[in-house]
């Protein structure tokens, strides 16, 4: 079986997750959702998987139905526990084992990101974004986070974000976050339809980690608006195993959203 780009992206996220971790599955974020569920079903039986503000028990569901909206009450039917939204956002202890996935309008070379809008003047934005939602907090309080975007181009990967709504590695350096007193481990991976990137030790500049099958290093460079750290050899992103792909297609993504 041949995995699609989205299936590969989901598998990259899954491989980062460790049994026992705490993760939220958003609605309409099919790639992170599939990544979390893949890890949960294959090697993370003791992960706390949050669906629609509930702690869900889906481990033995033959098919874990996808929901388009986070407010779909049917998505709460597997709940063992409800979280009031304010408790979810204000009680932070459980997030020490948490992993978060964030999107962005803009991302700079240190993994700082922007969900607010495009334009130099906040009072006269050229493009107003949706707002920070809970991303500012979740990218601090969880043990680490990954930036996941649906396209890879120089409008997203910019030299400087117009606004920073979620801090990455600031102006660079291993201590960029600790010197501000921020507890979480910061951004680890940036996963796009072209590649996986991480951050170089020391400088914390974004670095190409692997390119997806069929993508060249040059493709990535020309679609990135700043200079990436490029290691001497860049491997191809490891695709899902046959078994992983089967679990993805039969139990997690039965509607085939990742195959579109």
């Amino acid at each position, binding site marked *: 079986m041949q995995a699609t780009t989205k299936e590969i992206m989901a598998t990259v996220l899954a491989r980062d997750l460790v049994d026992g971790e705490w993760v939220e599955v958003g*609605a*309409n974020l099919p790639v992170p959702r599939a990544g979390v569920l893949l890890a949960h079903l294959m090697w993370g039986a003791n992960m706390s998987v949050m669906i629609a*503000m*509930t702690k869900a028990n889906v481990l033995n569901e033959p098919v874990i139905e996808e929901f*388009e*909206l*986070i*407010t*779909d*009450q*049917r998505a*709460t039917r597997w709940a063992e526990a*409800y*979280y*009031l*939204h*304010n408790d979810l*956002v*204000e009680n932070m202890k459980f997030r020490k084992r948490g992993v978060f996935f964030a999107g962005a309008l803009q991302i700079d070379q240190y993994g700082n990101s922007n969900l*607010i*809008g495009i334009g130099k003047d*906040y*009072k*006269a*934005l*050229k*493009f*107003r*974004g*949706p*707002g*920070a*939602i*809970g*991303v*500012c*907090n979740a*990218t*601090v*309080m969880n043990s680490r986070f990954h930036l996941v975007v649906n396209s890879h181009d120089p409008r997203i990967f910019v030299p400087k974000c117009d*606004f*920073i*709504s*979620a*801090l990455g590695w*600031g102006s660079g350096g291993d201590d960029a*976050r600790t010197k*501000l*007193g*921020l*507890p979480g481990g910061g951004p680890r991976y940036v996963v796009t339809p072209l590649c996986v990137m991480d951050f170089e030790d020391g400088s914390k500049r974004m670095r190409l980690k692997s390119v997806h099958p069929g993508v060249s290093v040059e493709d990535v460079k020309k679609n990135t608006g700043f200079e990436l750290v490029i290691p001497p050899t860049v491997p191809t992103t490891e695709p899902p195993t046959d078994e992983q792909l089967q679990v993805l297609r039969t139990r997690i993504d039965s509607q085939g959203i990742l195959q579109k």
Partner: protein
Amino acid sequence: MTETPQRKKRIIELDDALAKVKDGMTVAIGGFINSSHPMLVVRGLIKRGCKNLTVVGPASSGLEIDLLIAAGVAKKVVAPYVGGEVLAPIGPAFRAAAERGKVEIFELDEAMYYAALRAAAQRVPFNPWRSGVGTSFPQMNPAIKEFKDPINGETLLAIPAVNIDIAFLHAATSDPYGNVQYIGHGYGDRAIYAAADETYVQVEQVVSNEQIKADPLKTAIPGADGIIRARFGAHPYSSPGHYIEDKAHIKRYVQAATAWAKSDDFAPLKAYLDEFVTGPKDHAEYLERVGIRQLLSLDEY
């Protein structure tokens, strides 16, 4: 011996609840993105021509807030997100009004939002928060101040209290005395209630006090100031345990608002408002215009 006097029922008419809202007030709307918004109230505020309101949306606001912006009710919006997920990743009127300087945004993220509401509930001028240090929030929202904490000298953000004059919520049930219960978790509605001076709640159904007492843990709002009868009262948004969202209707709104956002053409929005907001004389007539067949198609299972 004298009879023990009995309690007053707190069921009120929509218009009596709306009459509490005065120009310039801070008014909160409950729910979450595509669910549980008090839509009789939202349409009512527009119909009455309320102006200059500071509107506190849900922590993740849906297109009900977008509609209040489109109709010119909201001067300022307190919300970490305004949109409709796949139905509209960014609220079209929110986006357009923000870009055109027609609405002020009190920029914050969800954790800051609850810190602000909690400060109001606790009657303190602010609450401290850590996340956000090093970001653009204090620059985008000058009401948020960076400061050194008085215990350890750590850098934190001071999130000012957002006090709510009147909160409007939508829930599954209440007894006649304002003991409100949800089906499901109720999103952040309890936090909105805690920050509000007064709270009026739309419910799908008024139930007996005995039914409420059968499970007191479920009582999320122990004594709303008024209960508004509102079957299908969250339409076009979902009401957990009762009906799913009406995507076709929401898309109709999105299309109208997008026309305004993209080409500054207000006509489609005006048509939407005429048909569904200012036109119907009451909730029953609104539901008639939506159509019973359409309402009956919104079953969860």
